[in-house]
């Protein structure tokens, strides 16, 4: 259906890379879930890069494959799901090819995860300090207690928590504090990449803001790259440097945050941005019709054809590929590809 992953496995060199600060490169990733009625194409031919020290937002509605993409990067896809094809380059290593043993060393060390509802993932019978200590010692071996405690206190300080948290149990903390403990654990081993799956979704807005600002500070002070998964476009506008939009397992648009919000190109992105409820002006609700297709049986042609207001005959037979429309702004939609092909000025800019 699409280009098969044929890049030589030994070479992590970018096929057409312009930037040399790529931390993670996902190439033609496919993750399918087996069901009795056939495979669900949860992630279908997704490619993107993450640059050093940036927050890449990954957005889309529930079931669009954003969490599956993240889990595939960590190689944590659970059966009946499986990675069917593609490469995930991290620091010159293809994660798709690693053994479980090699992966165990890499997780936390290089990539860490702040899972959905992370605050419920803390061990209820261990004090916060002990849990962070476990993470560090598990990967770096036993260490002098005093230096280790200093280091953990420094981590807590980085995420804006008072030192007394070190001796507290998780149930003594509020949701926002627990979430920040999870961030402290995620940065404990100086990873190069953090995957944060809806890190603030269960929190109240005021606490959400505190946690979000903690993530920003961590990014700025440590230069860590973060893949931020979420569906709150407001939060994305505030946090992300670039945003990737997924729909039904496909990446439909990826762009720096400003152009994505100011001049969204893909009709789905436009819909997503128009449907954000505003707090500044009261306006009529934006209604849309149409349902997503059955993911087991994607249509030929564009995956957004059933809901797209600009659909043409061509969209029903040919599938648009992700292409550069402006430098760094890629979109999978024929509306813009023809403009690019004919050399004309592209719409909306």
């Amino acid at each position: 259906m699409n280009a098969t992953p044929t890049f030589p496995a030994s070479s992590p060199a970018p096929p057409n890379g312009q930037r040399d600060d790529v931390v993670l490169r996902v190439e033609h990733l496919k993750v399918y879930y087996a069901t009795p009625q056939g495979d669900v194409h949860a992630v279908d031919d997704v490619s993107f890069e993450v640059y050093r020290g940036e927050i890449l937002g990954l957005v889309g509605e529930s079931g669009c494959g954003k969490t599956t993409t993240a889990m595939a990067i960590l190689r944590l896809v659970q059966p009946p799901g499986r990675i069917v094809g593609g490469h995930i380059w991290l620091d010159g290593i293809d994660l798709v090819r690693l053994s479980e043993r090699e992966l165990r060393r890499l997780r936390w060390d290089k990539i860490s995860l702040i899972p959905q509802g992370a605050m419920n993932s803390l061990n209820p019978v261990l004090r916060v300090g002990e849990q962070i200590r476990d993470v560090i010692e598990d990967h770096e071996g036993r260490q002098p207690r005093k230096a280790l405690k200093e280091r953990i206190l420094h981590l807590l300080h980085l995420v804006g928590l008072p030192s007394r948290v070190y001796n507290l149990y998780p149930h003594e903390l509020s949701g926002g504090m627990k979430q920040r403990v999870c961030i402290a654990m995620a940065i404990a081993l100086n990873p190069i990449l953090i995957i944060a799956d809806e890190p603030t979704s269960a929190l109240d807005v005021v606490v959400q803001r505190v946690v979000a600002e903690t993530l920003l500070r961590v990014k700025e002070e440590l230069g860590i790259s973060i893949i931020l998964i979420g569906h709150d476009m407001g939060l994305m506008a505030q946090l992300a440097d670039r945003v990737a939009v997924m729909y039904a397992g496909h990446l439909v648009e990826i762009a720096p945050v400003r152009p994505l919000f100011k001049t969204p190109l893909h009709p789905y992105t436009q819909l997503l941005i128009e449907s954000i409820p505003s707090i500044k002006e009261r306006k009529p609700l934006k209604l849309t019709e149409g349902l997503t297709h059955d993911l087991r049986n994607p249509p030929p042609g564009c995956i957004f054809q059933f809901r797209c207001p600009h659909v043409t005959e061509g969209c029903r037979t040919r599938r648009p590929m992700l292409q550069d429309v402006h430098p760094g702004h890629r979109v999978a939609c024929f509306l813009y590809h023809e403009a690019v092909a004919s050399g004309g000025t592209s719409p909306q800019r």
Partner: protein
Amino acid sequence: MSTPLLELRNVTKVYGGGFLRRGPVTVALQDFNLTLYEQPAKIITIAGESGSGKTTLANLILGFIKPTAGHILYRGQDIHRMNRHQRLQYRREVQAVFQDPYEVYNPFYRVKHIFDMAIRNFQLARSREESRALIEEALNVVGLRAEEVLEKYPHQLSGGQRQRMMVARAFLLKPRLIVADEPVSMVDASLRAMILDIMMRLRDEHQISFLYITHDLSTAYQIGDEIYILYQGTVAECGDTVTVIEHPKHPYVQLLINAIPVPDPDVRWGEDQVITLDDEEMRTSIHSGCRFYPRCRHRMAHCQHTRPPLYRVGENHYVTCFLYEEQPTPAPLAEGADVKD
């Protein structure tokens, strides 16, 4: 209209502190007052963060729990002192739509079952044809087609469809009031607009009022008529939705509205550091004085010991904050300007 449809008089709900267990009590809701008339139908938002008492309020109005003090009157009658006829009318005219459209269905029955049950319980139809017509009408209102959904099992429907079915079921009973507890927090952005639109249409075309319980002020701002913003069981600010959200007066509401991320990368939030971390995280159990005292930037000595009453600061705009003690008039306030960031 003399008798209000729904009236809450000084409703208080306290959890804990029983006869044997003298533990700390949690005041989930304190002295809450609300009056709703049958005409005109309104969407009244109850907003607040988790633990503010908004779900307690929903449960009280639906009669699931009894208030510790105060009265809840439906058409002038205390809902816990109703006769059979009154209770049936109340049960029929006050309907609920809950947050999770996945949990409210029995997975063993086809979705038709929930409509049949409602029709049978309230004896709405005398024949099969009549009941079918009622169901189709209700489904049409929410934009679903009967033949497409009725024979299916719950797992065959999407979250948005299920939530719309729940609204249709509520509508079937021709209610006067629907208590909607976070009805859109679990559906996707594109479906959220559709459900909010249905709520507005039911209000405008069928004169059904809503008690819209949410933590999301932006959707409340888009569809709501009146708003009550709760903080730890007390009303911080209430009144006309647009006025309250555009010109918040209470320091907590200002903090809340400033914290909402703006979907515009050029409008950064967080120029003003409004949050004091330690205090903000601590759930306090102060019973005298203002609930917001530990987190308030404008706190004064007497805020700690005296609970502020509801001050009128504008046409249909009330605030429980001593900052507005001196100015009972709606004129633009010197202090108000000072408070706004």
